[in-house]
């Protein structure tokens, strides 16, 4: 083969390659990269849709974000949600996976049931939860009421208090609202983590458990520490990352429970809700864009941390 022919085939291949990637590249730029740039730019303006012009306002939006109490509440709500939902949904996912994996019967049944919330339309399920949490006709308070006047009431001061003063308004009470939302988040997400952990568990080499036994490992806890947990390392890093990103993006539950106002005393005013409320509903695009930029920073930091973790601990 002559040199010129080599060049032609190489050039041809280059041209086809670019033709094949072009649609994806263009869309990536238009849909993902340019909006990031736009959001960054708009976050320094007081832009609003429909206004004839706009002004550069410098870091004013960011200053508001960091000083105003409503945004302080936004950060509190978001981080509370993330800090509660991530560890619990990962922990429950791992726990369920370990339990199910150790069983011989009914494994598939549990797996299927726990996975149902992952498939279900969250807004529909949020409405169902709302009914269950209804102060008067909800099944939860009805169940609690049956405990009134029994032994349970005398053993459980919380219940006794509510038997006297009426059952809690789960969604309307500032003390409970964010926790209820966290609970629904965990309910929805832990099945996903469980399935990832179950997949991780199947990749743990069985001979490792035998080796551990021969090496004198007697307790289940030691076995978990020596074999299972290290083997699940990559799964855990991934599960935590994806749970974090999903937790940051919580929106459906809150919108379903509180169409306006993000909960009693804005106790469930999470970032996605803030972006929607400020940027879309109230047309304060500059403010919404500033929250967007902050949000992107958080999510990117988490993912970069994950990649760093994955690259640091390469065994196999």
């Amino acid at each position, binding site marked *: 083969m002559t040199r010129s022919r080599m060049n032609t085939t190489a050039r041809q291949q280059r041209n086809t390659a670019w033709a*094949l990637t072009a649609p994806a590249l263009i869309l990536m730029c238009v849909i993902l990269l340019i909006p990031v740039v736009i959001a960054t730019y708009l976050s320094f303006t007081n832009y609003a849709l429909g206004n004839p012009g706009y002004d550069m306002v410098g870091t004013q939006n960011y200053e508001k974000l960091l000083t105003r109490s409503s945004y302080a509440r936004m950060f509190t709500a978001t981080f509370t949600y993330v800090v509660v939902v991530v560890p619990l949904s990962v922990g429950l996912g791992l726990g369920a996976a370990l339990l*199910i994996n150790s069983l011989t019967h009914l494994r598939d049944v549990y797996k299927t049931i726990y996975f149902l919330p992952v498939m279900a339309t969250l807004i529909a399920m949020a409405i169902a939860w709302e009914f269950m949490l209804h102060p008067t006709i909800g099944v939860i308070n009805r169940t609690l009421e049956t405990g009134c006047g029994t032994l349970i009431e005398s053993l459980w001061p919380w219940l006794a208090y509510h038997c006297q003063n009426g059952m809690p308004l789960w969604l309307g009470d500032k003390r409970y609202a964010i926790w209820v939302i966290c609970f629904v988040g965990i309910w929805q997400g832990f099945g996903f983590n469980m399935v990832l952990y179950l997949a991780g568990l199947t990749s743990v080499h069985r001979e490792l458990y035998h080796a551990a036994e021969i090496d004198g490992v007697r307790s289940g806890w030691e076995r978990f520490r020596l074999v299972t947990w290290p083997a699940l390392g990559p799964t855990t890093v991934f599960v935590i990352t994806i749970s974090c990103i999903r937790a940051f993006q919580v929106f459906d539950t809150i919108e379903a429970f509180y*169409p306006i106002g993000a909960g009693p005393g804005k106790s469930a005013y999470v970032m996605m809700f803030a972006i929607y409320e400020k940027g879309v509903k109230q047309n304060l695009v500059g403010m919404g864009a500033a929250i967007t930029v902050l949000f992107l920073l958080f999510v990117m930091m988490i993912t970069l941390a994950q990649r760093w973790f994955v690259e640091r601990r390469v065994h196999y």
Partner: protein
Amino acid sequence: MTRDLWKHLLLILGALVVIAPFYTMVSYSFKSPGEIDRGEGGFFGSQQMMIDSHCVTLRDPNRADIAQAADRFPGQDANSIRLALRAEAEADCAMRPIVFNYTQAFTQAPLLRYLMNGVIVTASIFLIQIIVALPAAYALAKLKFWGRDFVFSLVLFCLLIPVHAIALPLYIMLAKTGLTNSYAALVIPWTISVFGIFLMRQFFMTVPDDLVDAARMDGLSEFAIVWRVMLPTAVPALMAFAIFSIVAHWNDYFWPRVVVTGNRDLFTPPLGLREFKGGGDGSMFGPMMASATIIVTPLIVAFLIAQRRFIDGITLSGMK
């Protein structure tokens, strides 16, 4: 088995909590407003005939109706004819709660239209994602060209950007181009799935180069190789991606909420359900839960039929 007893107890307890809202949803969709209110009737409700008051009010007889019906009730005065007509209306409007709830779900709001929108949007998103991602993934995995590493690192960078997070600038862009409140607005942001490109590229890396070379020897063009050689080999990965994509977009609530305002004809099922909730009073709990059941059912049924595929699909897309 006895050793596992406490494990089963624990798991069953968990399962009850997981199932509870599904149970409530389906159960409410069977019951009459009274039963929901009083919390009785078990799972199915007693299914006693109930009278749809709205339907009766609509048929409330006026003077013309009474005059018209006079020959059907000879020798009776207007008042008793009115009562008789009322009784007829009530008889016609009586139905079982389950029938009431499900017919209301479809008549109160154009639920069928919503479901169809859901199908159109979900299917278009998936198809366009494949058409865009597959050739790019093939080029990144199997072709050597100047700039490939750059393109791939761009893909890796874009994996960091969740589309929901940049909803606001996307919304502004669509508003500026006058595309909000259209199918296009519902579909466009999702046409590029960086994750799909990444997943397919990883899959194609495992396909032997010999297969591609053999296809080239057979005289296939690179475009033909993508669609006639790589696509069939990628079916398992595509299935996984399909499940991932369809579940995400059928259930998506945030983006449609941002981009569709007011125009009911474009509502996706979650939006429709939300609207139902916004407008409903207490008596509409049953129909609302009926709609919720109808919206949740397709994916759940598909999942129950092809559990393994779903779980594998979700985990495969999880294991990058």
